[in-house]
């Protein structure tokens, strides 16, 4: 942890970074995002496997973008989502420097998109075992059981939109939920409106989500919404090949096509 703080202070000192987004501990010993602008504050930085927040979502925030030169202390999932965002032509107006700790515990500093791509491909994360187990359990269920499962879960949703707020891929200026001509998604948190919202969100993230799991982890109502996009990811990888957040060229599966795409369900 010491080298991370020293490197961060150095980056802030020599001006390669105006604002560094990292983790620190709050009163309750919880790991929370922190925003450091001066080298002196760098000693509060902390980084370990428990740092799960996907900090790349802050790169869309106006107050953060104003700093232009931004440092990001990131786990591999965050790096993968930055790579996916770069492949979607986002964030190119920022000069980003990434600080991460690799499997062997050494501090790694990535200064360019190419270095980022190489690092992510070398340490490409796989689906977390507990998620895979839940996915298999759900896929093993009958349709009625799955309907009952999601009906019970989605009736808990209060439409606080925290899942949309923490997702780096959800950066639309006006979200479908905020459109009221026509009213695509009901504003009130009734179960049918929640179904519409989560179906729409899963469809808009299919082929883009990098499965960092943040939406399910932070949901106040404890709904595993990350399973929806995780399932979509796995099916689209089998069906269309290619992985999300794998390369700068990206290639969003839903806006290309192959003549040989799956067709057995079309009469």
């Amino acid at each position, binding site marked *: 942890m010491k080298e991370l703080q020293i490197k961060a202070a150095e980056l802030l000192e020599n001006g390669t970074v105006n604002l560094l987004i990292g983790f620190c501990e*709050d*009163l*309750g*010993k*919880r790991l*929370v*995002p*922190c*925003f450091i602008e001066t080298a002196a504050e760098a000693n509060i930085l902390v980084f370990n496997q428990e740092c799960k*927040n996907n900090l790349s*979502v*802050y790169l869309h*925030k*106006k*107050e*953060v973008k104003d700093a232009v030169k931004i440092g990001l202390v990131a786990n591999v999932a965050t790096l993968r989502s930055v790579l996916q965002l770069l492949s979607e032509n986002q964030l190119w107006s920022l000069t980003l420097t990434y600080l991460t700790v690799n499997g062997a515990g050494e501090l790694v500093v990535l200064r360019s998109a190419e270095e980022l791509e190489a690092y992510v491909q070398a340490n490409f994360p796989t689906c977390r075992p507990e998620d895979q187990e839940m996915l298999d359990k759900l896929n093993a269920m009958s349709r009625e059981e799955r309907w009952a499962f999601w009906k019970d879960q989605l009736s*808990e949703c*209060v*439409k*606080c*939109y*925290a899942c*949309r*707020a*923490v997702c780096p891929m959800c950066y639309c200026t006006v979200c479908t939920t*905020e459109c009221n001509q026509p009213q695509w998604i*009901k*504003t*009130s*948190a*009734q179960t049918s409106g929640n179904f519409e919202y989560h179906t729409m969100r899963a469809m808009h993230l299919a082929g883009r989500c990098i499965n960092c799991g*943040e939406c399910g982890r*932070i949901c*106040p*109502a*404890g*709904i*595993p919404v990350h399973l929806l996009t995780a399932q979509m990811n796995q099916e689209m990888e089998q069906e269309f090949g290619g992985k999300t957040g794998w390369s700068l060229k990206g290639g969003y599966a839903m806006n290309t096509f192959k003549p040989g795409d799956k067709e057995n369900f079309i009469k």
Partner: protein
Amino acid sequence: MELKLISSSDIAVFVDGLLKAGKVVVAPVLKQSGKVFFKPVQSFAEVATDYIQTAFSAKEVVFPKVEELFTYQHNEEGGLDIKDHLDRIPETVVWGLRPCDAAGFDYLNKFFLQENPDAYFKARYDKTTLVTMSCNKCDASCFCTSVDSHPGDTKGSDILLTAMDDKFYVEVMTEKGNILINSNSALFTSTDTLSKEAFLAKPLTHFSMDEIKDKIQNAYASVEWKQASMGCFSCGACAFACPTCTCFDIQDEGTQDHGKRVRCWDACGLSQFTKHSSGHNPRNTQTERRRQRLMHKFKYSVENLGVVSCVGCGRCIRVCPSHLNIFENIQSVTK
């Protein structure tokens, strides 16, 4: 105010008795996600007992996340039949909420009924009885002692139970509480006042209300707001989990011929909250929205209703994706 005792084993008998009497009992239930929620229960067995705080507050019983204001239906004469369903609200007992939640109900009562009384809230509140459980343990997010409350506070609750080894010390505060007790008075034996101190949690006290009340006067212009709200994503989680957040939106659902008008939760943190149809947004950045939330709770509601509307339950800290800390922010902007 009456003081009673009830043995721990009789609690299950008491609650099941309420259920048999046709009352709806809403109590904390441990869900598969490991979080505890207020749900209607069918028996005492479902009630969770080992928890510090529920994920969402119990305000949903008197201020539901979606509430039908009325249904409308075109009739033959070309007019509309408009019907509200205020008469169909069941007798409800909220079991096992914490003293900070009960203080939250006290604020909701002031907010909704003091001026322009809200008929829907009144209908639900009159039919609700609050049975509060004082806290024997707390965590770093609890700060009720900093907002003029404490883990054994009786404010707002009809009955306050304090667990003491194998029995519960029962403080019956209101008439509604008496009715509940008398529905099964055999289980209770009267007692004189006992000291609860030994059985209560000891949350840290970060500041006092008098200290904050005068320092908040010029906090609006503080430069700390930007740093305090940097971690904020502008979602509604803190407002929807909060026992005293009362903002709502009114939406119509249905066609021009028939449908319903519903009232649903809204949050000042959401970016569309104050947006005009012309596109002008008085609170455009996240810093202003976070400032509005804290200034409303610690200054504006004091000026309007004479009481700080934060009860120190710490839900907004636990539920926030980046654990923004309301009492740390208040301390930093009132330095």
